[in-house]
């Protein structure tokens, strides 16, 4: 304890001295810190409530959601000068039924001001065909197809009176990485340069994304549950992926 106090005493003047010479926004390149991302699951602006609440799709059809899970991976940050940092081994499974999964922590990120973030909605090509995985990619999570190996990137299950499936179910299992049915999509968003993501040794910012589950069903093609209520990869999954590619996530704000 005492030793660290001496260190601090020694360190403070150095920091102060150096901060006089440098721009205050600049930080040493070799320091690392942490930031977090919160994914607030919604449906058209209302909080996502599983199982009970009724929502409407773009066609005006009622539906309920029982399961909503998706992968966010290969998170890449960019600075205004164009330099980028790909967060290694960044694979996260967000599950609306598990509150703790909706707030993810990114560790050991080089400090700096980031003005752009991009990530894969789903899992990159290589990991779909790799050997046995663990963590977010563990097949135990129910997001791995065993008969046509590869990950389900986005899974939405529910019901709609309009669905012609048995039990009026909705089954949207979006995945597949081989053309023409490749559903890997990358989401990119610029961050307001006036309030960038400031990763600091003394600051652990939080990015807040709003996630609109209804984006699966509108954007490029409005989906009617009367005609499309079940897809597990293939051409119909591509329609859904093209819908959510830009509409699923929206950066709402950053707490620096």
């Amino acid at each position: 304890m005492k030793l660290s106090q001496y260190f601090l005493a020694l360190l403070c003047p150095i920091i102060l001295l150096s901060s006089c010479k440098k721009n205050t926004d600049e930080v040493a390149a070799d320091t690392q810190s942490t930031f977090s991302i919160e994914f607030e699951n919604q449906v058209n602006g209302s909080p996502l409530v599983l199982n009970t609440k009724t929502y409407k799709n773009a066609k005006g059809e009622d539906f309920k959601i029982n399961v909503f899970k998706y992968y966010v991976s290969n998170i890449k940050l960019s600075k205004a000068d164009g330099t980028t940092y790909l967060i290694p081994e960044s694979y996260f499974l967000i599950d609306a039924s598990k509150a703790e999964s909706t707030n993810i922590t990114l560790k050991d990120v080089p400090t700096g001001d980031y003005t752009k973030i991009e990530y894969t909605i789903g899992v990159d090509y290589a990991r779909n065909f790799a050997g046995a995985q663990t963590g977010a990619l563990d097949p135990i999570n129910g997001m791995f197809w065993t008969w046509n190996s590869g990950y389900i990137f986005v899974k939405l299950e529910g019901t709609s009176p309009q669905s012609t499936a048995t039990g009026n179910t909705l089954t949207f299992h979006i995945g597949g990485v081989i053309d023409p049915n490749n559903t890997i999509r990358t989401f990119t968003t610029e961050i307001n340069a006036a309030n960038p993501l400031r990763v600091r040794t003394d600051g652990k910012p939080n990015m807040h994304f709003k996630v609109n589950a209804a984006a699966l069903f509108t954007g490029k093609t409005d989906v009617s549950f009367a005609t499309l209520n079940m897809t597990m990869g293939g051409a119909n999954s591509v329609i859904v992926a093209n819908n959510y590619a830009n509409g699923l996530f929206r950066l709402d704000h950053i707490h620096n």
Partner: protein
Amino acid sequence: MLFLSIALMYACSKNEDEVTPEEKKITFSVPANFPAPVYSFEDNKLSNAGFALGKKLFYEARLSADKSVSCGSCHQQFAAFTQLDHKVSHGVNNCQGKRNTPPLFNLAWQKAFFWDGGVKNIETSPLNAITDACEMGTDIQTIVAFLKNTPPYPDLFKQAFGSTEINSQLILKSIAQFTAVLVSDNSKYDKVMRKESGISFTSAELAGYNLFKEKCTSCHTEPFFTDFSYRSNGLDLVSADEGRSHITGVASDLGKFRVPTLRNIEYTSPYMHDGRFYSLDEVLEHYNLGVKASVNLDVQLKNGIPLNTTEKEQIKAFLKTLTDNEFIKNTLYSES
């Protein structure tokens, strides 16, 4: 640092001591007449303990829903790890699957698995059989829980991977340490090809080999006796099983299946994806006169493969040189 290196040296020598002198070190080596493998154990270090655990899991029937079916139930060593006399796989609750069990060997050279090539990595292959309602009818979560609570498994995982932690990744990696080590490379054919100690084909076998190279190798390519492609060999005008198109969603793949290996063919009856032919005679007669004009029939089979009686006998004589008795009887691979 010095202490660390001493500790490491000690750990190494200790590990070596654990392998008793009579216990054979499990290795994976590439046969002289085989190309480089696809699976190299790079991310799954092969060890005796890992292999032993994988083998035990392979033969563990308690992993299935009704505790009646293990991997080894449908993959029997005496049948080169397919299921003798079963047209289709026979799973839990006496459920009959829809396809013939493929044999298991030389899997380290294979890029895709199952008749339709749906699974692309040897490590994730068992998940298909584990979860199929007509095979083991369970899920990996249940298996993890069972193994955590069932001695001696936690100890076996510790020996294999250094920790009593059990998860799906370690389960699958240990099974791959067993299945990828299954190499069949000691058939008479292999020994002739490697020019081992004066072994040669009989005149009938040689005639069969020459016929084979003329009529069959474009699909059943050496040394694996498959080119791993997906083709229709005209079994039916309209295939009842969609085959490869179930995976690709492409109409031109309807009714296509992976060209099966012919190694150990003497012991892997019945034949074809649905096990419709019980004998090699039936198979050869299919190519002679039985090929039907399926919509996606392979162009090379447009006119079938005309074979007279002598030619059929010669080809059969050659096919039997692909039997690897050393593999089939290797006690290293047997349930212990």
